């Protein structure tokens, strides 16, 4: 179902006209209400009136996560305190969290955007949706929560953790839609099996996975275990939370809510615009946000955008699944390595579980990568040769895909940590990143 036909099927020309009109407005709004933008425009000799076409956006200096940290907590808010109705913060793995605020209109816009993506995945008001994201400062749970309610689905805010109870509720309530991180969904599937349940005990049909990357291979595994159809959605708390873009049931890219978010793809080094279909860093301008408008926010996520209409009927631009982060990218022996590439390789081996860890070390001035995987096929343990063959075929496949040699370590089943929130699968033990 298309939730907002007008906005989601608008002609490209009309959409671009709407975006330009909103862009002019938001640039002026930022200049007038946010000191950072006011000062930065003045320092660079830019006037808000300089925006005459969409491509004039290139004159605006980008906003970064550091800008948000430097103005912690409320320094970038564009509205007086009485208009702020909600405050969230990012998980902030290093230092202070990134704080985001919302006005009433922001929350309504967020719900609308989420409802569109949820409907695009195939969820209807008949569905029972269990949200296994942790509630709290994290935007994921409440974003999905409001969107699902806007659409009319029944929300079960079960939050994360207490996995056995999650499974009980899933079965007893006849949950049809599961909202979780891919890692947690994977774990719930494993646990359900361990507890003696089969797919037929559940009525799951749709999974909305987010908050961390998920390769097609991992997703297929989760779908098979739980008997559901899963779509990806994309967002980040700085921009609002989830709801920036999401897949329709055809899963050929994530439809961007372009009437609210203006997306560009740029070269992460030079910031030069990339052409349609070219891979680069996603830079997003919020067109309608009131509390925390951001101009050209550097997401650090690498993807590409196509603007051809989708067979689902939507005309909105589509971005690819994020292939990695420009700052998550590991440089090992001078080679760019994305954890997602490694995951794709590992998922093809049925002898192992889907859990893994990556360790990067520097010994004698040389980088090395260790990939730890859990052995799950016990029938191999009788023969040393079978285990060695498994190890060397994983290693050979990694070498083909990554171009570097990795050490593969087999570990005992169920010894790699199961993450209920965002998975932290990469441990970089080098003193400084190359």
């Amino acid at each position, binding site marked *: 179902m298309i939730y907002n036909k007008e906005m989601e099927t608008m002609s490209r020309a009309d959409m671009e006209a709407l975006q330009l009109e909103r862009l002019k407005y938001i640039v002026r709004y930022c200049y007038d209400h946010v000191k950072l933008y006011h000062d930065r425009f003045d320092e660079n000799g830019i006037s808000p009136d300089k925006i005459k076409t969409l491509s004039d956006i290139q004159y605006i200096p980008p906003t970064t996560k550091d800008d948000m940290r430097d103005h912690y907590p409320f320094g970038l808010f564009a509205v007086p305190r009485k208009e702020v109705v909600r405050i969230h913060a990012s998980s902030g793995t290093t230092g202070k969290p990134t704080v985001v605020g919302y006005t009433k209109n922001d929350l309504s816009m967020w719900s609308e955007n989420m409802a569109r993506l949820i409907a695009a995945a195939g969820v209807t008001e008949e569905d029972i949706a269990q949200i296994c994201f942790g509630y709290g400062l994290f935007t994921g749970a409440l974003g999905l929560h409001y969107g699902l309610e806007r659409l009319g689905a029944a929300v079960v805010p079960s939050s994360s953790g207490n996995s056995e109870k999650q499974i009980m509720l899933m079965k007893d309530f006849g949950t049809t839609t599961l909202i979780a991180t891919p890692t947690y969904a994977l774990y719930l599937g494993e646990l359900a099996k361990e507890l003696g349940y089969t797919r037929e005990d559940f009525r799951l049909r749709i999974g909305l996975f987010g908050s961390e990357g998920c390769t097609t291979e991992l997703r297929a595994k989760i779908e098979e275990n739980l008997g559901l159809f899963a779509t990806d959605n994309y967002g980040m708390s700085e921009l609002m939370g989830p709801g920036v873009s999401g897949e329709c049931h055809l899963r050929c890219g994530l439809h961007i809510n372009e009437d609210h978010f203006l997306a560009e793809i740029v070269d992460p080094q030079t910031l030069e615009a990339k052409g349609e279909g070219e891979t680069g860093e996603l830079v997003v301008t919020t067109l309608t946000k009131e509390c925390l408008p951001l101009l050209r926010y550097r997401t650090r996520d690498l993807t590409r955008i196509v603007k051809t209409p989708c067979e689902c009927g939507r005309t909105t631009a589509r971005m690819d699944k994020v292939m990695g982060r420009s700052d998550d990218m590991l440089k090992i022996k001078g080679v760019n390595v994305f954890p997602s590439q490694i995951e794709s390789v590992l998922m093809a081996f049925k002898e192992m579980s889907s859990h893994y860890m990556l360790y990067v070390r520097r010994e004698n001035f040389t980088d090395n990568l260790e990939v730890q995987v859990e*052995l*799950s*096929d*016990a*029938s*191999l*343990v*009788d*023969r*040393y040769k079978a*285990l060695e063959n498994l*190890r060397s075929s994983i290693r050979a496949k990694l070498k083909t895909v990554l171009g570097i040699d990795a050490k593969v*370590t*087999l*570990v*005992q*089943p*169920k*010894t790699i940590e199961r993450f209920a929130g965002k998975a932290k699968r990469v441990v970089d033990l080098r003193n400084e990143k190359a």
Partner: protein
Amino acid sequence: MAVKQLSVFIENQQGKLVEIMDALATNDISIRAISVADTTEFGILRLIVNRPNRAERVLKEHGFAASLTEVIGICVEDRPGTLRDALRILSDAKISVEYVYAFLNKEVNIAYIILRVEDNDTAQTALKAGGVRVLEGEDIN
């Protein structure tokens, strides 16, 4: 019925062997023979126990990758040359042995030998034809 051998994957980490032994001991499982193949990365522990099915279940419950396979057990007299004679039968039949280990049981002057070969049936037939006493699963308790 051939002899059931329990193979367990163990990471090279201090205390792993104790963990396994503890799980078996508290479940009243007695070990008849043990062999550990070591490598730099991981080891494979091979066990002959009195209650193989229970032992497999217990170790799996403790999170170990463990599996049962059928291996050949033979009895030879405890004097020089008996193992040579038995192995020559296999060699003549062009059957290769992947690994071997031995243990003593309650029978006096008799050694039990565990052999891992590709094809148990062919090997057993050849050994029996050559007059070697082949163990049945029930012999180990």
